[in-house]
């Protein structure tokens, strides 16, 4: 019935590679000093790298990738904006029925956990 739960280590490695690539590209850019632009770009890169690592097989990753292609407000999303509603938190959660929302949430949580671990590792490695 459900699609299988994500393989944590494969997502971690895929996300890590993509994210590091994005960060490298970011650091080479001239427009980025020590500003909040870089913070926002990093945040966006993290979000997109995770979605790209997951691929199009999940509704939430498809929603994120769709938002890039539309060139809409991808970066404008903050965590304080969506209120106490699960639909507002999970990307693409507005157009889903409740059942799939729950399964997407489960997958999304595992992916977020993987992402957090990878980014922590990166931090520890870069500044020991």
């Amino acid at each position: 019935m459900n699609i299988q739960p994500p393989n944590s280590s494969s997502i971690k490695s895929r996300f890590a590679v993509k994210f590091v690539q994005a960060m490298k590209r970011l650091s080479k850019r001239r427009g980025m000093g020590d500003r909040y632009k870089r913070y926002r770009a990093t945040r966006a890169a993290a979000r997109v790298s995770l979605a790209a690592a997951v691929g199009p097989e999940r509704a939430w990753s498809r929603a994120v990738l769709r938002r890039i292609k539309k060139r809409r407000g991808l970066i404008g999303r903050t965590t304080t904006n969506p209120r106490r509603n699960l639909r507002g938190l999970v990307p693409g959660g507005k157009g889903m029925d409740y059942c799939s929302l729950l399964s997407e949430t489960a997958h999304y949580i595992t992916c977020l956990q993987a992402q957090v671990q990878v980014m922590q590792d990166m931090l520890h490695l870069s500044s020991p």
Partner: protein
Amino acid sequence: MDKQHYLMNAGIPLQIEASMPIPWSSDQSFFNPNSSVDHHFDSDAFALRHLIGKLDRSSPAALPSLAADPGFAERAAKFSCFGSRSFNGRTSSPPGSATPGQSMVALPRVASSPSLKLNGSPPPRNRKLPGSGANSNEESSVSEQIPSGETGSNSRKRKSASRGKNKDHRSNSPKEDENLKRSKQTENCENEQECNENKTNQKPPEPPKDYIHVRARRGQATDSHSLAERVRREKISERMKLLQDLVPGCNKVTGKALMLDEIINYVQSLQRQVEFLSMKLASVNPDMENLLSKDMYQQSTSLPQQMYPLDSSSPAYYHHHQNVQQQQLHSTNISSVDPLPLDASLGIQIDGFAQNLPQFPAFTEDDLHSIVQMGFIHNTVQNQTSNMKVEL
């Protein structure tokens, strides 16, 4: 006479039917609320055919075919009401015992010979007998009650009703079983509110919403709408259990609303954590260009080995906060008091600054596009490190 003959014939399917739910008691999606009702005179042959078909296949998948008959619903309703009223005297006597033992009534006695006829049923019956043997006292009392001043049809109806109830019980999830049995003892009928109140009194932490529909099951089980509803509800509860395993600290919380709150909190905290880490990475980044390449190799090799236990992820979050507070964040000046207010204030400050920049940089979208494209081209991860090297 015809009635007695019918009784004898009905004894076979009755007995087998009674023994059947036991192997499938663990199957939660299995329901046959109406299979007990087959002994109406009109649907006699139909019922027997179904039962025999069931037994031949002896698989739960065959059962729902019975439920398709809408007539079963009303009959089940009628019989269950019947059975509940006449049952109360009986159910009160063995309060703690399992009701299936009761309902098996005199069946193991009725026909030992018919039991040999059917092939599919011996294993369930074997399981049946020890249980019935334990309740032999109740059996004797109950069986005496049956012939006492009642017609064969009534007794049959009562048996079927009791069995219908018990099967219905077993068809629910195990924790609902206890509530159903308890509520059954306390004078239940089709009245949903009464039963709902009973259940909520007996088990307050359980969400009452599920039980309302469980009670409605017996009356309207064959309705396609309620079937779909029930399937949907089971799906939802299944996924909530999955989520409960994922979110740390959710085991103590019961009830959908509280769990949803916990889940929302957890997702929000994870997202905030990602934001925080990305801010840190952004501030660290310009110094460590060389280190990033080192990161890549180390990441791809070390990540599968490093497994932080998931439980520590949320306390690690707070520890990380404290570490961050102790380090000097040149972008923010915040007193380190408490992790959560720090996070909130950080969020507010960052967002405030972010809003000052009217347009977000357009180049990042090209970046993002390239990230996506790279994913689709190089799907196998391990080779990417060598590719990266070439790009550098």
